[in-house]
């Protein structure tokens, strides 16, 4: 499905723009090396959401594995990120996978016993349930990982804005990218400042409890100061003006992508309702 050719590049209104400016605007568009990258961000988001919800709705092994084999892997190959995607997805889902195995295999009541270690009894039903959850987690991690690696968040935000989502919500989403690393730096700097005033952060629980407010309060207070200054700087640049904005660049949306998006949504809801109503055949 991901191999269909995509219309050429972003749509540029060439009315009254010099060739040099048009070239500059094209350079602003994030690099999109492969056909998969050039898909419209909303399409890639719908595919990622469809894959992950589909895996949960289908349940069992066959459904999620089919999604993985027939959709995610080929798309990752087309997008030339297959290797990195696998590594990152495994890394991200490892902690939760270990917990799943420990919790479900050993605690799920079931007749067939595989083996026992001390008080814990490993049952086949437990292993089966754990297996299903693991497969679902893998689909979730790879689907979203593929989306993250092939889509610039700003491209998604601008695309949603073009479709009518208010630019202010788009701002809140896009601004998070720079805010989080800055917040991490600020928390580290504040912890250093408080340790410089004798605050002991490695001691017992009482010492650590005493360390919570001297860390949390400055982080929040300095963030609120930043909110104040950022708001004024944005207001001065007409941020508050309601109404449509002409964006410098947007990602093209091919004619066939809209039906594909709606198709995915309808398919997932269909299977979900069928499953709830019990009409869906039980596949392993």
């Amino acid at each position, binding site marked *: 499905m991901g191999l269909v050719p995509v219309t050429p590049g972003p749509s540029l*209104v060439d*009315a*009254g*723009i010099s060739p040099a*400016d048009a070239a*500059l*605007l094209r*350079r*602003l568009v*994030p690099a999109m090396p492969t056909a998969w990258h050039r898909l419209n961000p909303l399409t890639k988001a719908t595919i990622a959401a469809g894959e992950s919800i589909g895996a949960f709705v289908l349940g069992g092994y066959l459904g999620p594995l089919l999604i993985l084999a027939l959709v995610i892997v080929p798309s990752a190959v087309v997008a030339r990120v297959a290797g990195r995607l696998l590594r990152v997805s495994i890394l991200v889902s490892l902690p939760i996978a270990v917990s799943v195995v420990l919790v479900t295999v050993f605690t799920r009541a079931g007749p067939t016993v595989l083996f026992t270690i001390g008080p814990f009894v490993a049952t086949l039903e437990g292993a089966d349930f754990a297996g299903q959850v693991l497969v679902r987690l893998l689909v979730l991690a790879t689907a979203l990982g593929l989306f993250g690696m092939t889509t*610039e968040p*700003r491209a998604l*935000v601008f695309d949603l804005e073009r479709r009518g989502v208010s*630019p202010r919500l*788009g*701002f809140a989403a*896009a*601004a998070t*990218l*720079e*805010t989080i690393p*800055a917040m991490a730096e600020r928390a580290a700097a504040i912890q250093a400042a408080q340790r410089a005033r004798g605050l002991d952060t490695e001691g017992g629980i009482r010492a650590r409890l005493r360390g919570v407010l001297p860390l949390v309060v400055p982080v929040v207070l300095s963030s609120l100061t*930043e909110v104040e*200054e*950022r*708001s*004024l*700087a*944005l*207001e*001065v*640049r*007409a*941020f*508050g*003006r309601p*109404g*449509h*904005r*002409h*964006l*410098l660049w947007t990602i093209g949306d091919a004619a066939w992508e809209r039906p594909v998006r709606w198709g995915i949504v309808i398919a997932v809801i269909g299977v979900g309702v069928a499953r709830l109503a019990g009409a869906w055949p039980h596949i392993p």
Partner: protein
Amino acid sequence: MLELRGVSYRYPGYATQVLRDLDLTIADGEIVGLVGANEAGKSTLCLVASGLAPASIGGRLTGSLLIDGEPMTGRAPHELAERVVAGFQDPATQRSGVAATVFEEVALGPMNLGLAVAQTVGRTRAALAALGIEALAERHPSRLSGGQSQLVALASLLVMRPRHMVLDEPAARLDPAGTNLVAGAIRALAATGAGLLIAEHRTDLLDGLCGRIVVLDGGCVVLDGPAGEVFADDRIEGFGVEPPARIRLARALAARGLDPALIVLDADATPVRGVASPDPAAAPSAPA
């Protein structure tokens, strides 16, 4: 023309008036320096003169802000954006945080105004050229020096084509290299014909750049006149304002009974060699 008539202001949630019955006029293209001790009301005056107080911050304003004779009361901040803009100290918080290139950062204002792409691109190019930072167009806004970031912030204001710009200590957090960059940029802004109100402690930066200096104390304008006169006025030290180096040195020389003309500085406050060298022949008749 930007006018403040009989302006008093207090912040929301507070009873104390921070500005008290203050009048100030800034003609088109005029460069006015605003000086005064800390907490004399400089930042508040900048917020009121740019309309952000009360339009964005709230609080209580009596008197009125007029631009070209038109009262701005009740206007939303974005309606003021094409008339008067404000710049602040910290380059980091003046970045939108959503642009991946300097070009898109500067273009944010015109885009918010709803301009067509061609117009936005044209204005952005002009603003970058006016401040001489075309080379930074495709750099990431968060990976610049303090001085460069401040120039990008000033360009992001200039691109709104405002008739007046209010700058609250634009060079306060910069190192000497950054400060020089911003001082040069301010001269470039002045050349574009926009009226400038610049709040700054270091009077040396304002000396030679501003036609007029306004001194603020306790929320009132206590001195307002040509830069040469105000800086030479002995009362300004009482208002917590330190005169520029040339005046300090002249006074120190006079206090030692020496001729103040022994040190002559040219326009941009660099000492001129030779003229003041105390060569016995050329030395004026120093008092015995």
